[in-house]
């Protein structure tokens, strides 16, 4: 497969700059770090096979990776792993915690995961992309929506996430009080 040298250099540069970000987005989206790693690599493989960089490479990668995840979900009907139930998925760079702290951290992660999962698919992706540093334009391209719609939809997604997380926080506090 003939590939121009300049393209390969651009690809390498993009990979170095964006692989970790794409992986993080997929990890947050899927809740499955191993799957996220596989899909992030697959998205870059397909980008390389494309032979030229798209106009908006970050958005292209996010869109392809999201589609790969959706296909994978359809194929395997996997369920998200809740990190509180599967504590082997420790957060990155985490220092060893005392048992109480570890329990609290796992509980927090479970609440965040549950709040994310409560969002509709598109709002979840939008929130995660935005908090991964994507511009409105990139978010719009990645999701296939109009750029002018991003602001309103993002505000709605943020409010929904906060409400879901806050509600669960309230419920947890209520249980603690009882």
């Amino acid at each position, binding site marked *: *497969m003939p590939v121009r040298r300049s393209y*390969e250099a651009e*690809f*390498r540069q993009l*990979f*170095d700059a964006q*692989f*970790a970000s794409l*992986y*993080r987005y997929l*990890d*947050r989206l899927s*809740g499955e*770090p191993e799957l996220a*790693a596989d899909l*992030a*690599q697959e998205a*870059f*493989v*397909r980008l*390389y*096979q494309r032979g030229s960089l798209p106009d908006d490479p970050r958005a292209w990668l996010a869109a392809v990776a999201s589609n790969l995840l959706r296909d994978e979900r359809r194929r395997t009907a996997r369920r998200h792993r809740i*990190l509180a139930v599967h504590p082997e*998925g*420790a*957060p*990155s*760079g985490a220092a060893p915690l005392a048992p109480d702290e570890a329990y609290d*951290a796992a509980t*927090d*992660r479970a609440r*965040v*995961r549950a*709040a*994310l999962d409560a969002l509709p698919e598109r709002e979840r992706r939008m*929130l*995660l992309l935005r*908090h991964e540093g994507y511009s409105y334009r990139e978010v719009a391209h990645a999701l296939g929506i109009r750029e002018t719609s991003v602001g309103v939809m993002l505000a709605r997604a*943020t409010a929904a*996430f*906060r409400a879901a*997380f806050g509600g669960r926080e309230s419920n947890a506090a209520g249980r603690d009080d009882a």
Partner: protein
Amino acid sequence: MRRDVTMRDRGDEIDALLRTLDHAAPQVRVEDIIARAQARPRRRPAALVAAGILLAAGVAAAAVVPSTPLHRAVLHAVALVAGSTRGSTPQPLAHAAQGTTVAMVPRARLTVRFLAPRPGVRLRIRFAPVAQLSLVPEGGDADFSVGRDAIVVSRPTAPSFVLTVPSALNELRVERDGTPVFEKRGDTIRTSAPRDAAGDYLLDLDAAAP
């Protein structure tokens, strides 16, 4: 101003919450990604493949159905690309590796005229159950002019030619400098040329006569 600060604080708060989900990114080398991409056959969208098949089928159909606008358009387009023949309505269809090949779907009759063939030039005439007539120079080249019912071959440098003729063609006439050397009308063929084991006619354009 206060509102912006509040929104930024809220954004930072959500960032912090999302970070609790993160895991360390795996160490992946770009060389491994490139190697995987190069080892894999390139993907083509199914729609593109289907469109290509349909286009090829359409062009093929146009090439074998004479006297249709699409047929003429295809011939014209190919003639523009080939651009190597002379005459009022040149219609060469392709280049062969060893020279120009003429291919066309004839109407009811066709005349092939050889002008000033050099000594020893031979012509093999082969009838076959095909729709398209072709004239292929072997070991050299020639100038072709293709009209509606005639092909003119001039300045041949090829020592031999193969003329493949649709069996269904009603009238065929081959001339050398205006002298007919082969004629077919319906099922009647007039020529002095011998036939080989395969049934092809072998004409020596120096000597052949009907």
